[in-house]
């Protein structure tokens, strides 16, 4: 066991609540009495690596159709809160299939409108997508006041095969 001559001042690691993952500076093994294995943990992820990882995750999270939906709903309804979820994996599609979406749209534009009218506004904003690759769209449309008093979203029904039950191999989806 190699011992260094001078240890120097030890800075204790910060409390665990704040620092998760790479935030904690590991104790040199010589100070921990050799309890930790000799492997060296990287003190923290290098910034470029972290950024690239974040970008990769973001790209996985929002495909082109998701981005189009987000852009169009934002332009049409100026939502105070907008959630766009690709539900396709829950309907038998591979991740990133982008065929079934659910959206939560909170907008003052919905005030005074019936649920039907609100959903029609959403459909109108996404008419090109609905005529194309967007096969199913679940919608929660609330005013900011409604959302503040109830931010819950109802559970999505489980997939039951949908158009996969059709004889011809047409596009699968809810249209």
């Amino acid at each position, binding site marked *: 066991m190699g011992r260094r001559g001078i240890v120097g001042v030890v800075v204790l690691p910060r409390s665990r609540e704040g620092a998760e993952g790479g935030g904690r500076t590991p104790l040199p093994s010589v100070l921990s009495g050799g309890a930790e294995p000799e492997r060296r943990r990287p003190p923290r992820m290098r910034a470029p690596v972290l950024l690239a990882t974040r970008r990769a995750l973001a790209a996985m999270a929002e495909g082109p159709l998701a981005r189009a939906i987000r852009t169009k709903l934002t332009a049409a309804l100026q939502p105070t809160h907008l959630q766009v979820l690709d539900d396709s994996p829950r*309907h038998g599609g591979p991740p990133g299939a982008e065929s079934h979406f659910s959206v939560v749209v909170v907008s003052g534009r919905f005030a005074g409108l019936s*649920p*039907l009218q609100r*959903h*029609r506004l959403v*459909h109108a904003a996404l008419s090109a997508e*609905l*005529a194309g690759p967007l096969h*199913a*769209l*679940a*919608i*929660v449309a609330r005013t900011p006041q409604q959302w503040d008093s109830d931010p*819950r979203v*109802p*559970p*999505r*029904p*489980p*997939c*039951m*095969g*949908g*158009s996969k*039950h*059709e004889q011809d191999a047409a596009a699968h989806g*809810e*249209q």
Partner: protein
Amino acid sequence: MSGVLRAAWRVGAAAARGRAGRALSQAASEGGGAEGGGSGSGSREAVERLVRAHPVVVFMKGSPEQPLCGFSNAVVQILRLHGVEDYRAHDVLQDPDLRQGIKNYSNWPTIPQVYLNGEFVGGCDILLQMHQNGDLVEELKKLGIRSALLDAEKDQDKK
């Protein structure tokens, strides 16, 4: 509420797989299929006849006994919760012309579609909302249909 719904969906899905066909809905689906297949079944007139044929009409994927889509099943389960078992259900998977025709008629891009008294009410999301906020009980009352949930509440009050 969401727990109840999830349970209802699971029960409905399992029961639907095992349940025997119900004559009324099957006849309706088969009727739609029989007169369909040609270009007529999706026309406005044909769709109009269907939506006016009964106070409660549903266009869905599969049948109430065997829904083939989670959203369509949700509609079936909600109606079942309210004790509505007598309604017309049309399986759009059996009739591509009807499938397109109903979307043109209501100017609504997706299935399922629910019609009350000939009027388009919405899809699964809207029916769920109406169920949760009590509107569905009221709408059914206007059609002369007493929701089973009212009786359930009464029983609870008695206890």
